[in-house]
C-alpha cells in the first residue's frame, strides 16, 4: 500500500506491505541506513528513531502506523553534511562509541532526553540510556559524552540569552 511519511522534515511517498516494519522501510525504501537492525525484537535499541520527538523502536512499529507522525532519524540530526550537532560532536570528543552500530540509536535517545532535561545528573543520563545496549564501551564514555553535550548546550543557551539581553 502507498503512504506518505514525514521524515526529517521532508514528506516522502513509500509503498509498504502491511507487515513491513518502519525499520525495514527506512532502510530499504528510504535508504536511511543509520537505523540498525540489532535484535528485531525491541530490546537492544539499535533501531531507535524519534516519532514526534519521542524515541521508539522502529523494529516494533509497522510502517503503516507511521502515517501522520514526524519521524526523525540520525540523518536528520546533523545541521548539514559535514557538520555535526552539538550532541554528536560531544560523542566524538568523548569517544562515546567504538564500532558505531548502537551509536545512532543512543544519540537519538540522548537527543530526546536532553530536550526535556537540560541539566541532568550522571544518574539521570544512566537512566535515560538504559534501554539501549552497547557492547563495546561499557557506557562510561557515552555517559561522559551526554553530560558534555548538556553542559555545552547550557553554555550555548546562556550565551544566546546574554546576547538577547545585551541588544
Amino acid at each position, binding site marked *: 500500500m502507498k503512504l506518505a511519511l514525514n521524515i526529517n522534515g521532508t514528506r516522502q511517498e513509500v509503498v509498504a506491505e502491511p507487515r513491513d516494519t518502519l525499520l525495514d522501510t527506512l532502510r530499504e525504501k528510504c535508504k536511511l541506513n543509520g537505523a540498525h537492525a*540489532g*535484535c528485531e525484537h525491541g530490546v537492544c535499541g539499535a533501531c531507535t528513531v524519534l516519532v514526534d520527538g519521542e524515541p521508539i523502536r522502529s523494529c516494533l512499529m509497522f510502517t503503516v502506523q507511521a502515517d501522520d507522525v514526524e519521524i526523525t532519524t540520525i540523518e536528520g540530526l546533523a545541521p548539514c553534511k559535514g557538520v555535526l550537532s552539538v550532541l554528536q560532536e560531544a560523542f566524538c570528543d568523548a*569517544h562515546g*562509541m*567504538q564500532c558505531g552500530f548502537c*551509536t*545512532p540509536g543512543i*544519540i537519538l535517545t540522548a537527543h530526546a532526553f536532553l530536550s526535556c532535561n537540560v541539566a541532568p545528573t550522571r544518574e539521570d543520563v544512566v537512566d535515560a540510556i538504559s534501554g*539501549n545496549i552497547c557492547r563495546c564501551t561499557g557506557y562510561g564514555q557515552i*555517559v561522559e559524552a551526554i553530560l558534555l553535550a548538556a553542559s555545552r548546550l547550557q553554555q550555548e543557551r546562556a550565551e544566546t540569552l546574554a546576547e538577547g539581553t545585551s541588544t
Partner: protein
Amino acid sequence: MNDAFPKYKYISTPQLVREDRRFAAGGGNYVADIEKEGMLHIALVASHHAAAKIIEIENENALSMPGVHLVVTGADLAAETSPLMNGLDTPGVRRFPLAVGQTRYAGEWVVAVVADSRALAEDAAEKVRIKYEPLDYVLDAEKAYAGATPVHTEHGSNILLDKTFVWGTVEEDFAAAPRNLSYRVTWGRNSTVPIETFGVLASWNAWTEVLDVWASIQMPKYADQISRALGIPSTSVRVHYDVDVGGSYGVKRGIKHSVLTGYISKRLNRAVRLIEDRLENMRAGDAHGPNRIFDVDVAYDEEGIIHSMKIRALDNAGAYAGRAPFQLGKPIGAIVGPYKIHSVQYQAISVTTNMAAQEAVRGFGQAPTNYAIETAIDKVAYELGLDRIDVRLQNFIKSDEFPYKIPSGTEYDSGDYHAVADKVMNYADYKNLVAERNRLRLEGMLAGIGIAACLEPSGGNSSFEPLLNPKTKTTTWMDSCRIHVDALGGVTVSIHTTSAGQGHETLASVVVAEGLGIDPKKIRVVRPDSLNSLPSNTPVGSRMAIMLGDACFEAAEKIKMHLRKVGAHNFGCDIADVHFIDGTVFGPERQQLSWDRLVTICHREFHNLPEGMSPGLHASHIKQVPSGTKLPENDQVQMYPCHSFEFHLILVVFDPILAKPEIKRYIIGHDCGTIINPHIVKGMTLGGIAHGIGAALLEEFVYDEQGQLITQSFMDYLMPSSHEIPEIEIVHHCTPSPLTVFGQKGSGESGYLGAPAAVSSAINDAISDLGISVDKLPIKIAQLSDAIAAADGKN
C-alpha cells in the same frame, strides 16, 4: 629503544578518534547497508533436533513460489565444495555450511532458500519439509569425554584434544609442599554477542571470474579459506576491507556463512546476501564462547607461597571443531598468571557435544583461565587466614626479574605488578574500603571485596597451533602498512584488514604522523581490498597497537631513509650527516630541503635523484611478531610477546534475600605500556569490564535436557545495560615493553580478562561467613539467593 623517544608529539596524546565522525552521523558502512543490483537474499531452515539423521528434504513447495530462485542442501555443498578448515588434525570432524546427512545440534542450518527478498525467502523456508530420524545426543562435557555416542561417527569419539603438559617438577613440588587444596570452577557458555549480527554479501562475476565479498568479518586468512572451500583460485576472491564491522570481540568469523553465500552467488551468477537474524545468530552463528570446567590442585606453604598447580580444563566445543580447541592453547602462554609458580601440570581437553559450535571470544580462552587461577589465590588466602592481596603480593613476579620465563616456555616481556597493586590500594584507600564493607555488613547486607590480578598476553601469534597440532609448522604471524606520498605531498596510509571499532585508522594516522612529523589530520588512511593488500592477520589477540603500530612506524622510517638519501645526494654529503626533522631534511651545513621540495624531486626531478633510485615516494613494511618465531620444543613455546597487567579491586553489596549484586566501587589498575591513544585504551578497558560483568552475573546460553537452546532472544540472554555497569575508576601505570617501538602493549582484551574473576571473588567474600561459596559463572541472582537461603536454613 624507548629512550630514543623521550617525548612524543602525537603518541599518548588524546587525538580524536577519526572513525567517530562517520559513526555519530549514522554514516557507517556496515554490510547490511551495502546493496548490489539484482541482489538475492538467503533464509535458512534449521534443525529442531539436537541430533537427527536427515531422511528426506521436500523443497518443491518452496521452489515453486514466485520470487524463489534456489534451494540448497548440505548434499549440494558436500558434492561441490571442500569442508571448512579444521585447525587440529581431525579429518573425521567435517563441517560444511549446511548439515550433511545428519544434524548435530538444534538450530543447525539444514537448508538455504534464496529469493528476491529476505521476507520471501523466509516465507519459502516455511514450506520446506524435512523428515528426520532422531539420534542419540550428548550435552554434558564429562559424558562426552567418558565415551557417549560420538557427535561425529567418523571421528570415533568426542575427543578433539586431550593433551597433558607437565612443565617442571610437579609431583616433587606437590610432595614437598606442606599444604594442598583442590577445587572445581565452571565457566558458563556465553559470548560477546555483538549488536550487529554476522552478514555477508557475495557477488560472482562470470566474465572476470572474481567473487567480490563484503562481510562483517574479523578473521585471519578469510579470503584463503573461501578460495579453498569453493575451489577457486585465491586471485578470484576479492574481500572488501572498507566495511565497518558492528562489533566482534573475536566472534565475527562467519566462514560457513561466507562459503554458502559465495557458492550460491557463483551458482546463480548473482549478488547474494545473508544477514543473520538474531535467532540464527544466537543458536547457529558459530559464535558461542568457551564453556569450561576447571579442576585445580594447588600445592602451597604456610606463608601462602604457591609452589605448583595441576589444572585440568575440560572444554565443551559444541558440534564442530572450529577454533575452539585452540582457546585451550593460548592460555598456556600465561598459565601461571602474574605469579612465580615453580611447576605446572595442564591437561587440556576439548570435546564435541550436540550444542552450537564455539568460536574465538575476546581473550581466546584467557578470561576463563584467569578466573580459575585467581580462585586459587583467594582459596589459599582463606585457608591460611591471610589477606588476599598480601598473598598476591607475595607470589607476584618482581619487577627486576623481567624478562621472566614461566614454566611453559613463554618469556614475559616486562611488568611491575607490585607498583600497580600499590597504586590501586593507595587510590582506593584499601583500609577504608574494608571498613566500608564491614559497615555494610553491620547494616545486614552481604558485602564483599573482589580482587583479581591478571595478565593480558598481547601481540597475537599462532604458537598454540604447532603446540597442539604438530602437523602445523607455522611461525609466521604478521601485519603490514603501506605509505604512499603523492605528487602534491599528500600522505596516504593503507591498512589491510577490517576493523570492528578498535580505531585502527586513528592508530595508523597517529603513528605515521609521529614518524614523519606531520599532523595526523593531514594523513588519509585507506583499506584496499584483499587483492590489493599486503598480508595482515587481522585484529585478533590484542595485537594491533603492537603489530600495526610497529608496521606503520617502520614504513615511516623507510620513507625517512629514502628522503635522507635524496638529501645526501643533493647536498653532496654522506647520509650519516643528513637528518630528517618534521618533514624537512637537513644537511651538515644548514642546507635544507622542505617536504614540498623533496616530494617534487621524487616525483618530477629524476635528474636530482641518486643513481639507481626509482621515482615516486612510497614504502611498505610487513612486521613479523616480535617473539614466538620458533616451533615448540619439549612442549614449551613462546606464546604472545607482550604482557599487559591489570589489577581489579571492587566492592559488591547485595541484600541477602534478593541477592542482586550491586557493584559499589570498581577500580582497575591498568598497565599496557605506552598508550598510543588514551581515548581508545580507556574505551577498550571499560568495555572489557562490562563484558566481564556480563559473563560473571548475567550472560549464558542455556540448553534444556532435549538439547534445545532456551535463551534465544535478548529477553532470555541478558546483557548489562547502563544500570549494571558502575562508574569505573582507572588507575594507570606504564611499564614499557622492550619489544615494541614505543613500548606499547595490547589492550583490546583488557578488563574482560579479570572482571569475571573479580566479581566472583567479591561475591565469595560476601558469602564466606555463611560457609558457602559459588563456583560457577554466571552467578545468577536466583541461584545466589537460593544458595543463601539454603545456608540460612542449615545455620
